[in-house]
C-alpha cells in the first residue's frame, strides 16, 4: 500500500483506511513523539491526538505541496512540541532534550515485545556519531539547517550534504 493508494481511502473515511494508516505510520510517528516526550502516558496522549488530527483534517492535506508522510510528520512534531510547552518546558525547541533518538533503545529494554527484525538498531550504533546527531536534530526534532548548524557547530553549507551522506549509508544498509 502506497500513500497514493491510501489517500483516497482516507478521504472516504473508510474504517479500514484508519487501520492501514495506523499500521503504516504509528510506529514511525510514535518514535518522533517519544524522542521528544519521555513521559510514556503523555506521549501516548499525543499519539492519540495526532491520529485524531490526521483523520479529521485529511481534507486539508494538499498533495501538490508535499508527501502525505511529511504532512503527518509536521503534525506530529508540532503536537509533541505543543505538549512540552504546555507542561512548562522552556519554549525554545533547542532546549527540548539533550537525548537523541538512540536513547530510545535503552528505554525500551523494559518492553518485552520489541523485535528488531532487520537489525537496524545495531546498524545505527555503528553509524557515525555525526549522522545520529544530524538525523536526530533534522528529522526527529525538526531543527532548521541553521539551528542544526549552530547546535553541532557545523558549517551551514555542509548540513544538507552531510545529512544526505548519512541517509545514503542508511539506504545502503536497507537496500532502498
Amino acid at each position: 500500500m502506497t500513500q497514493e493508494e491510501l489517500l483516497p481511502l482516507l478521504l472516504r473515511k473508510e474504517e479500514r483506511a484508519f487501520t492501514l494508516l495506523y499500521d503504516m505510520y504509528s510506529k514511525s510517528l510514535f518514535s518522533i513523539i517519544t524522542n521528544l516526550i519521555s513521559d510514556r502516558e503523555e506521549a501516548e496522549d499525543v499519539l492519540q491526538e495526532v491520529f485524531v488530527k490526521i483523520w479529521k483534517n485529511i481534507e486539508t492535506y494538499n498533495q501538490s505541496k508535499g508527501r502525505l508522510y511529511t504532512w503527518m510528520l509536521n503534525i506530529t512534531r508540532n503536537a509533541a512540541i505543543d505538549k512540552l510547552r504546555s507542561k512548562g518546558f522552556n519554549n525554545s525547541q533547542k532546549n527540548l532534550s539533550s537525548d537523541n533518538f538512540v536513547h530510545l533503545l535503552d528505554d525500551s529494554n523494559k518492553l518485552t515485545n520489541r523485535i528488531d527484525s532487520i537489525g537496524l538498531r545495531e546498524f545505527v550504533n555503528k553509524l557515525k556519531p555525526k549522522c545520529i546527531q544530524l538525523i536526530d536534530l533534522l528529522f526527529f526534532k525538526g531543527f532548521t539547517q541553521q539551528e542544526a548548524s549552530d547546535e553541532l557547530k557545523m558549517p551551514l553549507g555542509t548540513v544538507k550534504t552531510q545529512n544526505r551522506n548519512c541517509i545514503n549509508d542508511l539506504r545502503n544498509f536497507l537496500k532502498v
Partner: protein
Amino acid sequence: MESKEYIESGILELYVYGLLSESENDEVAAMSNKNPEIKTEILAIEKAIINLSSSFSPFISHSQFEKIKAQLELKHGKVVTMRDRSNWSAYIGWAASILLLIGIGYQYSKVNQANNQVATIEKEKSKLQETVVDLETKNKQTETVLNVVRDETNTVVALAGQAVAPTAKAKIYWNKQTQVVYVDASGLPTPPEGKEYQIWSLKLQPQLTPTSIGTLANFKDNRSKVFAVEKTGDAEAFGITLEPAGGSPTPTMEQLYTLGKV
C-alpha cells in the same frame, strides 16, 4: 545531469523531513512531478527514514489503537458492524416507507383531483347535451314554423282583435287538403295564470257552430308561438277565446280575443 546534481544537493531529504521553506518546497514538489528520477529518489528516502524511525519506536499497546478508534467513533468488530448494517438498512427501510407513504398520499390526491375533473367534465358535458337538445328542439320548431309559413297550399286566415282585446291578432295556417291547422299566436298577450287560449273552428251557416280544435297549452314555453292544433275540414271562420286551463266545451263569447273568416 541536472537532476543528479539536484538529488546530490541533499534538498530531497529535507523535503521529506518537512524542513523546507514554502517556495523551496513548491519547487521540489514541481520537480518531482516532472522528473520520475527525483520522484523515485524521494520515495526511497522516505522509505528509509520510516524504516529507521519505526524501528526505534517503543512498543505501542493495542489499546492505543482502540482508544483512537473510539475517539473517532469508528466502529470495530463484526457484531458492531452487523448492528450498524442492520441500523443502516432499517434507516433505508424507514426512509423507503416514508417515501412510499408520501407517494401514496400524492397519488391519492392526484386520483381525487382527476375524479373531480371527470365529474366536472361530465356535468359540463350533460349541460352541453341539454343545450344541444334544446337547440335542436328550437331548430325543429323554427323549421316547422318556416314550413308552415312557406307552404303555398296553406290558407292563411288573419284573425283580428275583438272587444276584449282590440290590439290582439293571430293567424291560422290551414291546409285544406291535409286539414292540418297551425295557429300563429305571437300577436296574443300571454294568458294569465290558470287560463289558456282555446281555438275554435266556426261554421257560419246555417247557424254559428263552434268546434274546439284544441288549446294552446305551454304558451310561455313555445318561443315561436306557432302551435299545431287538431285538424278540421270544414271551417268557415276561426276564433280564439280565453278559457280556464284545459279548455271549455263551448266558447266564452265575452272572452273572444280574435276572430277571422276564411
